[in-house]
């Protein structure tokens, strides 16, 4: 776990493993065939599956591990469905999946100076050993040596390896990799590599002991100096010779690189430019790390040239809808339900701006329509909205006139703002009596297909968690379409609360002596500040048809705040909105634009839409000047306080 001190506050670096809700859906603990059982390929998958170097960027829970695991032979063989055949035809390489392991980061745990060479060398040795062990695992899969818990129905890239050939191969690998192999089989080599990991750990402890007692350093064994690329090249050549399969491509899949030591991460990021071309590198990592400056050097691999970059977050929510619909279909089928459109299952959302949503038998803008009712209600409660209507010459009794014109588009665009202001804003005529509760229940605002799809941000883990919860509740309440809006909204609110509670658990250790009042203490604090500032802007402040809804991290934003935002980005609390052709992996947040995730936005009564940007320092300064949002009916807000 890495830490840095900023203004007296110790910020946990991105190397800390961020918590994630719906952990049971985490693919890390699943076997490839288990992942394949329920896999629905997003459009990204086909890009990732191409035989090219790839960098997969996304926050926790966005599906990076699942996508990589699905490239492996066991997963491809276990995968059923029409997409599976396409994948097996497209993927003409052998994948080797290597998750990041804590043993790659070996540190001196004592007091005083460390033996500066031994620890990073041992960490590198652990890394190389993991790579070679995963490679041998891939050899075993290809040659059918693994114990299958199910019958693989679709053989993919199998290789024939006789017993004699396997013995010779094992001996070759043992010699080249300096391995004492007791049983000359691939399983024996695999076991020997596992034993080596244990030996590395013991060596690290010995070195630590000797360092602590100021004893002379012992010489490290030869295998510590093996480099994984050269060792892997030899291993691949030996296997292909033994199995008589001819030279092929091998994809090294490195997962969760944000947890890896900086030196290893830098080495892998630079690999596309420097490594044997039989290897394809596919790397997954979080969107932000200060150590990703390696990508900004003039000689660094460039996206679009040296590698393909795949973003798993969707700054524009509509880009994730296709995947959500496909996943919904699968979930409906899994429950033996008819595969019907999402709008039928969940209804339409008030946040939808799709013109189709507004076509009805009679005019959607008529005097008795929902839109007109919403607008009229707000104009009664909100003087600033009345002023806006007057200035624009909008007659609420005649909204339906010219319904196909630009006026109709304007009306639709404002509906989200009208909805949240109606839901959460006290009427201007209300006396401010904190004890008085609204007679109406909290509104079921975050319901309907659009709202749900926006809230999950195309994140499969979130989607399964929220939609699964909705389905369970709907079953208990008596299944019908569309599913009750309060049920939907409650699940979104629960997920939102859980997510914010998780953000609270990201440790930030404060030095109380240096801590100043007003500085954010943790990730949740900075998210809360941003959420409340936008709430003032969009909900409680004077009506603005084009409010701010995203922010740019400007020069004046405090360093502590920026560090916390980095953690928020990697955990999915905020979403990066890149410029066209903008960088997809960030080593600095300054000058970049972000929005709150729509799940977080729901906690602050904000509509799920990408509004224009304002500088972060200016946004947060509005909280200092105007105090509490007295015009907001906090009793009705679902937010976490």
């Amino acid at each position: 776990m890495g830490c840095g001190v900023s203004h007296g506050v110790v910020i946990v670096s991105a190397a800390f493993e961020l918590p994630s809700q719906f952990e049971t859906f985490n693919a890390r603990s699943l076997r490839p065939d288990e992942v394949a059982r329920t896999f629905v390929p997003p459009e990204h998958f086909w890009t990732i599956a191409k035989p090219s170097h790839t960098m997969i960027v996304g926050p926790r829970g966005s599906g990076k591990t699942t996508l990589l695991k699905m490239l492996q032979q066991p997963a491809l063989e276990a995968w059923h469905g029409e997409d599976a055949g396409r994948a097996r035809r497209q993927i003409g390489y052998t994948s080797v999946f290597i998750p990041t392991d804590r043993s790659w980061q070996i540190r001196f745990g004592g007091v005083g100076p460390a033996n500066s060479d031994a620890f990073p060398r041992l960490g590198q040795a652990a890394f190389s050993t993991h790579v070679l062990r995963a490679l041998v695992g891939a050899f075993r899969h290809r040659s059918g040596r693994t114990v299958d818990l199910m019958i693989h129905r679709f053989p993919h890239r199998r290789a024939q390896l006789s017993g004699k050939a396997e013995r010779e191969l094992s001996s070759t690998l043992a010699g080249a990799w300096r391995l004492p192999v007791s049983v000359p089989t691939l399983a024996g080599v695999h076991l020997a590599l596992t034993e080596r990991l244990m030996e590395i750990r013991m060596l690290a402890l010995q070195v630590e002991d000797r360092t602590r007692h100021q004893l002379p350093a012992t010489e490290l064994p030869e295998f510590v100096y093996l480099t994984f690329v050269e060792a892997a090249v030899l291993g691949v050549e030996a296997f292909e010779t033994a199995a008589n399969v001819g030279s092929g491509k091998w994809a090294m899949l490195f997962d969760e690189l944000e947890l890896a030591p900086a030196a290893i991460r830098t080495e892998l990021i630079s690999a596309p430019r420097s490594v044997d071309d039989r290897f394809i590198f596919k790397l997954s990592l979080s969107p932000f790390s200060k150590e990703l400056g390696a990508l900004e050097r003039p000689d660094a691999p460039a996206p679009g040239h040296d590698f393909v970059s795949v973003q798993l977050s969707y700054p524009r929510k509509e880009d994730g809808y296709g995947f959500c619909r496909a996943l919904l279909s699968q979930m409906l089928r899994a429950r033996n339900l008819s595969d019907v459109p999402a709008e039928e299952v969940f209804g339409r959302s008030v946040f939808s701006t799709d013109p189709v949503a507004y076509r009805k038998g009679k005019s959607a803008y008529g005097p008795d329509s929902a839109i007109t009712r919403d607008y009229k209600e707000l104009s009664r409660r909100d003087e600033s909205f009345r002023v806006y209507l007057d200035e624009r010459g909008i007659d609420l009794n005649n909204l339906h006139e010219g319904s196909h014109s630009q006026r109709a588009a304007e009306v639709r665009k404002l509906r989200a703002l009208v909805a949240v202001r109606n839901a959460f804003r006290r009427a201007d005529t209300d006396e401010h009596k904190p004890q008085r509760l609204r007679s109406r229940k909290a509104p079921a605002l975050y319901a309907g297909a659009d709202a749900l799809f926006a809230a999950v941000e195309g994140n499969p883990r979130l989607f399964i968690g929220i939609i699964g919860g909705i389905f369970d509740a709907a079953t208990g309440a008596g299944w019908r379409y569309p599913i009750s809006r309060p049920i939907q909204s409650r699940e979104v609110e629960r997920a939102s609360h859980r997510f914010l509670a998780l953000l609270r658990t990201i440790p930030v250790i404060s030095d109380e002596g240096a801590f100043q009042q007003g500085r954010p203490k943790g990730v949740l604090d900075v998210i809360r500040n941003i959420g409340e500032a936008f709430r003032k802007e969009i909900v409680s402040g004077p009506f603005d048809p084009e409010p701010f809804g995203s922010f740019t991290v400007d020069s004046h934003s405090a360093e502590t705040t920026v560090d916390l935002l980095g953690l928020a980005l990697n955990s999915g609390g905020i979403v990066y909105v890149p410029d066209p052709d903008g960088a997809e992996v960030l080593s600095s947040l300054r000058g970049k634009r972000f929005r709150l995730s729509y799940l977080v936005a729901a906690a602050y009564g904000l509509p799920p839409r990408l509004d224009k940007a304002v500088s972060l320092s200016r946004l947060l300064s509005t909280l200092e000047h105007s105090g509490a949002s007295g015009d907001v009916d906090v009793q009705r807000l679902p937010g976490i306080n």
Partner: protein
Amino acid sequence: MSDAASPESSQDESIVRVAVLSDIHAFHGPAKGEPPSYADEAKAEDQWRQHPFPGLTALIKTSKLKADLLLCCGDLADKAEPGAMKYCWAFLNETAKLLGARLCATAGNHDIDSRYGYNAFDARGMMQNLTPTFPVREGRLADQYWARQFCIVQSGSWRLVLVNSAAYHGQGSDDAQPPEYAHGRIAQSTIERLKDALTPPTNAAVNLLAIHHHPMAIGGVDEDGSYMANGEALIDLLAMDRQMWLIIHGHRHVPRLLHGQGGNNAPLLFGCGSFSALLRGRWATSAGNQFYMLEFPIGAASSLGLPLVGRFRSWDWHIGLGWEHATESSGLPGAGGFGCREHSGAVATKVADLVRKRSPATVSWLEVLAKYPQFEFLMPADIARVRTELESSKSIRVQWGAGYPTELSL
């Protein structure tokens, strides 16, 4: 050396107006890592609240700003990027037209390709080939700027010296430590030539000198030694001149206003904040991206018996909001003055006496200025000291506006 005639003249002969910006650092995005500035050529300019260029155009139009002179103190582009330099120069020319102003500029270290990133032998070629001509449109003066490291532009009641403090960037010995491109410089030969050029009498009431690098080290700011070598000689030269000078510079991105070293004719130094660079380090939270309008009321200087007085207005750039009046925490406040050197203690005494003589003992700042008009031209730091003096020693309560008092009372 100087151009005494100009087709353009001030619309108001008694006030000279100068619009000032510096250190734009325009670039062509998207940036791989942290962008160098907000002035991204690749970004659409239809949103004036999201880009400082159209933002400035909107400010000029809505506030109906006019000027005699638009001055840019260098670093048009970031790291001498050619496309960005042309983009920025075109913007400055359009802005000058909008202001009804004459455009003058000076080169910064980022404008000279001193590391030969785009050219193997000519570090200044890009700037020298800009159209219209850089740093002024008159070719003769531009040639003098590049050949002699300075030129003098004069029009009516103002005179402007443009000095090239990056003259030797891309030259200098490879063994020099620090390398020449790491700091500014004015050679002694340039000082001598400038002295000769300034010797003949002038009728210019406002005398300005624009350079990119700051001419002297300022404590707490200049940790990297990048100020002008031999800059003290320039300050001494101007201090010995008959006129009172205002030096306007950029480079450090730290807005400030102070007196140069020397006697009571030492020049004033107006240090511009950066127009649009992404600020870094400890200055990031205490300096803003700023644009300025300076006014020199010649008649007021004359009636007050002061050699040079002026007012300034500052605007800060905020993404999403555009250019807004600056606050005190961004460097230079939204409004202020310069040219009056009266000691803050004496000022406080006069103000306190005025308040005490009133019944009720309340005076507006405008009433103070009516009696002591020179106080309008106190520098922000001096006004702040006056406030402290009034509150701590004179028991005068000060209501404070945006950089100056509004009301004083017992």
